[in-house]
């Protein structure tokens, strides 16, 4: 009783060794939850755009509003003519937001795993580098590291690498931190209620405070981090395109 454990994602299953290349790799809780979230996103998208009509009604308004909002966001932070990025930004926003909100449904948040956020950050990094090379040329991209003076080159390289690292750790840290704090408080409240009102069959003191904290750690942080991650992606990629 009262034992609390803060663990990484649980390994649910291991791929059989017989499969070439990926044999023996674990299927983790994060992956399962990610797939649930993906399924949810799929259902959401299909439902929202089911039987669209010329005169929008109900859920269709929502879908159109969402698309317009993301297009607007992309326009304002990346400049005109970047609408092809909108679906990617929408993907990041939705995946991140719903992935974090998974904690509301008794699942380990998808974004509470460094590998998830790092994966996204690496994708963003690839996009940044790709756009840099596309718009500056390969030589121009390499030359960009020597500015303003050539001695800055190591720092520039470091800052380039720091971009995905900081993005992924920021997101992961916020969600994982919330997870840790929630778990700790839950454990502490359980211990306290065992001590004070131990005669009751349920840990009474767990009612209330964790719910309020969950508003911040789950809802607010989830929305905030999803937004920050998408904004940073747009800002970095837009910056690369402008140069």
């Amino acid at each position, binding site marked *: 009783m009262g034992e609390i454990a803060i663990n990484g994602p649980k390994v*649910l299953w291991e791929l059989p060794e017989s499969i070439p290349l990926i044999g023996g790799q674990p299927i983790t809780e994060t992956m399962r939850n990610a797939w649930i979230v993906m399924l949810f996103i799929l259902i959401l998208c299909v439902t929202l755009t089911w039987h669209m009509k010329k005169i929008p009604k109900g859920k269709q308004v929502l879908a159109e509003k969402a698309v317009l909002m993301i297009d607007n966001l992309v326009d304002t932070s990346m400049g005109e003519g970047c609408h092809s990025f909108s679906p990617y930004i929408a993907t990041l926003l939705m995946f991140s937001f719903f992935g974090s909100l998974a904690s509301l449904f008794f699942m380990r948040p998808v974004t509470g795993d460094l590998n998830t956020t790092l994966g996204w950050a690496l994708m963003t990094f690839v996009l940044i580098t790709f756009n840099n090379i596309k718009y500056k040329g390969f030589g121009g991209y390499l030359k960009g590291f020597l500015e303003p003076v050539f001695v800055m080159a190591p720092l520039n390289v470091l800052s380039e690498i720091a971009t995905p690292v900081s993005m992924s750790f920021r997101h992961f840290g916020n969600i994982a931190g919330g997870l840790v704090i929630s778990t700790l408080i839950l454990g502490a409240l359980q211990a306290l209620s065992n001590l004070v009102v131990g005669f009751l069959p349920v840990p009474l003191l767990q009612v209330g405070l964790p719910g309020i904290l969950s508003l911040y750690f789950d809802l607010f942080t989830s929305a905030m981090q999803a937004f920050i991650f998408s904004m940073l992606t747009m800002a970095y990629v837009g910056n690369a395109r402008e140069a």
Partner: protein
Amino acid sequence: MGEFLPFVGFTPWEICVTICNTLITFLIVKKFLFKPVRKMMAAREEEVQDMYAVAEKTQTEAEQLRSEYTGRLAKAKEEANEIVSSATRRATVRSEEILKESSQQATAMVKKAETNIALERQKAMNEIKDEIAGLSVMIASKVVEKDINVADHERLIEDFIDKVG
């Protein structure tokens, strides 16, 4: 209890899975959210533009018709004015003509009447003359009791009357 991965871990396998997941989600979002919505909005935009084009065309047509009708109306008014004025002019002329004609007729009638009167008078005068002559002859024959020649007498009396006036 199964195994746990480290809380802050770095596993390339998981990163690969995440990237694959994200790409799949990207395709889902693109195909099932953005594509239909964009298509629908484009269709709507096209329809609105069509409607605007039609409305504009109708408006220009209406404007054209309006100006045409205004012109026609103005022309019709002018024509009506002309018709009225010409009719008035004609009426004036005609009335003057009628007046003139009637006055002429009146003059002619007066003249004719005068002539008639003169003739009647002449006739009456002659009749009177004859009567008087007859009377005179009768009286004279009575007075003279002498059967003088009637013809001579008449001649004499007529001479007398002519002298008298």
